[in-house]
């Protein structure tokens, strides 16, 4: 462990519970590196997570941390941010957490554009409950609840968030750890609701069931299938088949941040009170 880990992790909680080779640890490393680069005071950071393997991240990091209920992290985070806007609020969710049970909260958080940063650990499976398919599991994959292969079409989380109105949307992977740090830094600096979808891997509950022999092989898959968004624009569509874009995918500064808008409500209410 290096200086960064000692500064931002609760060292007495190490080693973490994640399985050997799980992408969650890589994402946590990229995240604390981003915080270090942002220079935020630890007392001013609130980290909010849902339930799942990914949700355990808040227990390991030395901030104001809260591990909420499955799917509801964004609702709790919304209350924290609105009540104490000074805090830098980060929200950590799994794919099931964010787009199955918490899907409604996610799209509404995107629509409101409150200044928070969501990091979604998309490992394409329900890790904690032992490998049931999620809304992002690709077709024809194996899961404990899809012993004959999945039939459901999958969500593209980043596109979903762009559609719902998030004003900063990026996609990274656990393999591209440096890029991930950059994206988290940019997301945090963006004044509005930011989403960073992280394509990651669950070697135990997804990999083993779907012909990945090792965590390394799953990282290699990310390396080979993640295409820089800028490069993807110049590629023929058929070359992108089965691949996904990484990097900053969308940014808008036209939509006002929620609390800025709310300031106008407070102003109007006070004017009415006076008159």
């Amino acid at each position, binding site marked *: 462990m290096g200086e960064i880990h000692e500064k931002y992790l609760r060292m007495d909680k190490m080693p973490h519970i994640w399985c050997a080779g799980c992408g969650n640890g890589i994402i946590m490393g990229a995240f604390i590196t981003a915080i270090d680069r942002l220079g935020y005071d630890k007392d001013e950071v609130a980290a909010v997570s849902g339930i799942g393997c990914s949700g355990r991240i808040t227990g390991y990091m030395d901030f104001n941390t809260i*591990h*909420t209920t499955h799917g509801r992290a964004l*609702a709790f985070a919304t209350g924290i941010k609105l009540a*104490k806007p000074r805090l830098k609020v980060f929200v950590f969710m799994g794919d099931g957490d964010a787009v199955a049970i918490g899907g409604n*909260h996610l799209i509404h958080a995107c629509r409101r554009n409150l200044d928070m940063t969501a990091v979604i650990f998309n490992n394409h499976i329900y890790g904690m409950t032992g490998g049931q398919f999620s809304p992002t599991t690709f077709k024809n994959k194996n899961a404990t609840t899809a012993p004959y292969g999945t039939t459901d079409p999958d969500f593209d989380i980043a596109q979903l968030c762009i559609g719902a109105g998030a004003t900063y949307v990026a996609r990274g992977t656990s393999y591209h750890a440096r890029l991930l740090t950059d994206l988290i830094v940019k997301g945090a600096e963006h004044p509005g609701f930011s989403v960073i979808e992280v394509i990651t891997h669950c070697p135990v509950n997804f990999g083993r069931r779907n012909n990945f022999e090792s965590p390394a092989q799953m990282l290699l898959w990310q390396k080979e299938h993640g295409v820089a968004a800028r490069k993807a624009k110049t590629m023929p569509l058929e070359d992108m088949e089965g691949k996904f874009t990484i990097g900053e995918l969308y940014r808008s500064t036209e939509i006002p941040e929620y609390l800025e808008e709310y300031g106008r409500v407070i102003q109007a209410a006070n004017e009415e009170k006076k008159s």
Partner: protein
Amino acid sequence: MAEAKLLSGNDACVQGALAAGVRFFAGYPITPSTEIANAFARELPRRGGIFMQMEDEIASMGAIIGASCTGTKAVTATSGPGFSLMQENIGYAAIAEIPCVIINVMRYGPSTGLPTSPSQGDFMQTRWGSHGDRPVIVIAPYTAREAYRETGRAVNLSETYRVPVIVLMDEILGHLRERVEFRDEDLVQEISRKGPEPGKPFLPYENTEDGVPPFADFGTGYRYHITGLIHDETGFPTNNPVEVDTIMRRVNGKLDMHIRDIERTRFVDADDAEILIVAFGSVARSAHEVVRTLRNEGKAVGMVRPVTVWPFPDEDIRTAVAGKKAVIVPEMNLGQMVREVERVVAGAVPVHALNRIDGLLVTPHEIRDLVEDLL
């Protein structure tokens, strides 16, 4: 303070909450509680507070817990269907010990039920609605005046004991507009949760003597962890049976340690009554009416009215029923509070349930008929 106002019960709840220092509301519209959201939307921004219309009641409950983590006093309001959705997060607030207040204006259920009709069908749900053992305080006002004062008290109890508090209203109380004359005793205090002691190491779930650990607001320099997993005194998950047992007994037992401060029971001509009516909420209005008229006729009838309905006032009821001829428990449900009364009375006195489930209030007339039969 003797100041008269025309107030509905719902408006009175809002006024009481504001007086107690509530500065955050998150909710989702539902009849018959919607006026509460409307009033907070108008009033909070004027006080620099936040009103938030969330996407559903689950989110509303999550948002008020989040707001409360920062030290902001937070409230939500709902009715049956929304109250059902809130249960998981109410359990969360109970075990994570985060103060918050839920106003449940009961309507007829189950399911969508009769949205504009009153009911007392959530009496048991307020106590047992979440999975697992969890503490809760439930307060049931019976007039607009009381709704004001008791909502203020709900906020204060929630802060003092780090527990979710439910204000149990119903459609009649919520919508009935009454002329309310506030007196000195209606003055709502502002009580805030106790914080960590400076210079002392902070244990977020300390097994304190009074059963209530200090609360550190987010962003005040105490970086700690909150979770709905069963945790030890440090706030981190544990499955050590001794630690699990310790925290569960403290969290579920802390209200008993302060029961005299939490309980509030009102007695009307109870001492020398032969027949005692035990009623809460709007049904207590009918019961009160019966006591008044029958007493005028010289008949020995009285009423006990739990204002704090949970924890159930065992002692107050036990003492009040001693030596009575019969006890009547009228309710707008199929018999929920009557089970508590029967448990406490334990066969010492006959207990009669009087239940109405047609969406209408139990009338004074019905209660009177039963009293006269029993006299």
